[in-house]
């Protein structure tokens, strides 16, 4: 797998809050670029090992690439760029979602709720029947 070559860079970028879209694109482009450099080095007469080494050196150090990416805040995720705004929005969304949560719960657990309603209905009917019978026994004189 060619892309394993930049796995540590991928992890570093994701952990630093770079947008996953740009992380994946960067890894793809670096992989292709490395292949082009390697091919050019092989065509110039270098051996496979030396060509790979030259390609890597020409592409540059992974730390330098990561630093260059992190120097562009516009490539970071929204929550990394504006942490306070993101925190406020998340809190507002959570508060806004609170009234809807019981409804969402009901929709998600429809079968259980139907069983519960049926059980309550049966229990209420039985209890009503028992109470009505007792009432009739007490009230109606023999």
């Amino acid at each position: 797998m060619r892309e394993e070559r930049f796995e540590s860079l991928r992890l570093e970028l994701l952990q630093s809050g770079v947008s996953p879209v740009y992380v994946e694109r960067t890894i793809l482009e670096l992989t292709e670029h490395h292949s082009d450099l390697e091919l050019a080095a092989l065509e110039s007469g270098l051996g496979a090992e030396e060509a790979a080494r030259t390609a890597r050196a020409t592409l540059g150090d992974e730390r330098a690439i990561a630093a260059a990416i992190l120097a562009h805040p516009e490539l970071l995720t929204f929550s990394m760029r504006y942490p306070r705004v993101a925190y406020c929005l998340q809190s507002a969304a959570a508060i806004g979602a609170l009234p809807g949560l019981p409804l969402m719960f009901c929709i998600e657990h429809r079968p259980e709720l139907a069983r519960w309603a049926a059980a309550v209905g049966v229990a209420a009917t039985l209890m009503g029947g028992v109470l009505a019978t007792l009432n009739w026994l007490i009230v109606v004189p023999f």
Partner: protein
Amino acid sequence: MAQTNPPFLTGVPELLVLRMLSGREMYGYEIVKAMRLVTAEAIGFGEGVIYPVLHSLEEGGALKARRKSVNGRERVYYAVTTKGKRRLEHLSDEWKRVSLGVNSALNGNGAGGDPEHA
């Protein structure tokens, strides 16, 4: 190890990338090759740092990107937008102004006169 240039060249990669792409769409490796050719390798950098510049320009609306499969290779081609053309004009003017100033200083037209004969 790839050569690097001092930090005062900030903005130059952006200018060069836009200039390279003003003629036709290219992918990263092509852009770097073109840059090395036209600058006679005067500007050294680790080639991998071209991608944050491209992505940043795309994010800013100066470039648009599209994926294309060529001979089994997945390429991301970049092209300049109208906004990018305006940005190129602005950066070119800025660079001409700065280089004129620096040349003027090097030719001894500064306030202190010729530094070699000060």
